[in-house]
């Protein structure tokens, strides 16, 4: 049950991603919420919107992030707002903050993923090649050479 509170005096404001958009099409607003305890995505609960983040890449394979740095600095510096992890990552990537450790972890995982995918493709290529050779060796005397 949501508590009725006066945002001005209650708790520590927090900056997080409010998920808008619809099913299969997420779209995030970087918003300032009165407190982490009050839940996030309820529009009435948003104090101020300080940016947007489109998680899906556009035709030029870019993910667009808009950040109102002036207001962001005010909430972080003046009002000592709490910042959620994805916003920290975004600020890290944008250069305002140091890179967030989670980005490094994400990068390492992706690199590992790519590496073993390559291994898999190399292995498949090798197998395919082996199969074709067997066919050549067995198939050569009886059938004509497959084009």
């Amino acid at each position, binding site marked *: 049950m949501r508590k009725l509170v006066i945002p001005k005096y209650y708790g520590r404001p927090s900056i997080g*991603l409010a*998920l808008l958009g619809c099913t299969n099409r*997420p779209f*995030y607003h970087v918003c300032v919420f009165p407190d982490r305890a009050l839940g996030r995505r309820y529009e009435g609960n948003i104090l101020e919107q300080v940016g947007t*983040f489109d*998680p899906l*890449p556009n035709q030029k394979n870019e993910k667009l992030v808009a950040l109102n740095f002036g207001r962001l600095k005010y909430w972080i510096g003046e009002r000592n707002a709490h910042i959620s992890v994805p916003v920290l990552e975004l600020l890290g990537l944008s250069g305002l903050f140091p890179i967030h450790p989670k980005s490094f972890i*994400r990068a390492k995982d992706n690199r590992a993923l790519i590496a073993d995918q390559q291994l898999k493709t190399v292995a498949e290529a090798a197998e395919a090649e082996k199969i074709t050779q067997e066919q050549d060796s067995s198939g050569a005397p009886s059938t004509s050479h497959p084009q």
Partner: protein
Amino acid sequence: MASLLPLVQTRSNTVNFFMRRSGPELWKTLTSVSKSGQKKGRRNTRQPIRPLNRFYRIGSSPMKVEFAGLNAPMRMNQDQGLLSIAEQTEDEIRDSLGGVKKILEEKDTGKKKRNREKLHPMERGFSGTQLVGQKLGAPPPVDGVDFDDFETYCLEVKRTSNMTNVFGRVHTMSALVVTGNGRGLAGYAVGKAPIHRTTTAIINGMGMASRKIFHVELHEGRTIYQDFYAECRNTRVFAQRRPRGFGLTCHPRLIKICEAIGIKDIYVKVEGSTKNYLALTHAFVTGLLNQETHQQLAERKGLHVVEMSPSRHFLPQIVASPISVELKTEETLEALDRLNLDDFYGEGRYPLRKPKALPFFSNLEGHLDARWRKHPFRNQESTMIRLIADNMVPRWTRDARAAWAEQRNERMTTGVEPMPLGIGLSHVVPKKED
């Protein structure tokens, strides 16, 4: 099916109700109306006499029963009873079932049906059955002058009556007819004819209308020069000039008149009585005849008539300048001519431009809540247009959109496009091959 043998009735005075009265006498009990009743107009309030013998034969019934002597020959040998039921095949039963309906349908077509060809909705006129409002072709030529490119419309056919001492109430049909060639020449008249002669009334009207032709100057051949106000009896007409392609937005009768005259773009507001079509036409035509072309206006005022069109950023361009009158200069100009030209043509009346009133619910709580819920979807219309314009989707049907989504999804699963993952997106868990 008449009985085959002449039926001889041996006893004549049988006390049998059905035999006492004949068919027509019995029907009279239902349909007779006394003399004074007929005067009071009660003749055809009774039900009509129905010709029963056309449908029902005595002794005929759905089951084919053969009564000896009635619809079957008398049989000498007595072993069989007087009644016997004949076997009927399937289709015979069906025929007999619909027998009555078939006879009734045949009877209908017999009636003289007015073979009226189906009119296109545009030419159907005002009511679809009458001639009022339909195109009536060219009026007959008058002493050598033929009106072949003219088009006439009948605006109104009504029955007027007049009480005379000899014949009492005499009814005459009067038809208001307007004719015109669609290029500024037009004429209207009222044709009269005795009762029930609507067509002759219209023909008389056409004849008279083709004699009373007037010419109307049209701006660019499509609309009126100035917004005018005209009134006749109790009908007040406010006409306003409209840009090209606007169409005719006015009283249905005025639409026909404008088609006859050749006006293509106009807005007319009729106030007062709108059903008095003669006063309406008279008011509208007097308004038109009082129009002034730009040349006449320049002559009368001795000034340049200047057009400022919005597509040219209201750059003044001379449209007409005085020829026979010398041009006035700033000093000789009266204070009156400095005023706005449009104010002079309404006899002191201005067109009523009421701002559209907001609906009563515009700031009720429910409506505001509805607008709050619709607010996130305000951009869908332009996004739809943008997507179709970039031919992402051929048509905005659900199948086409689903196909587009399917195609993009399939491209991502096969790896042509990188699967979007990262901040804010849930991990793609590969399907477990069990």
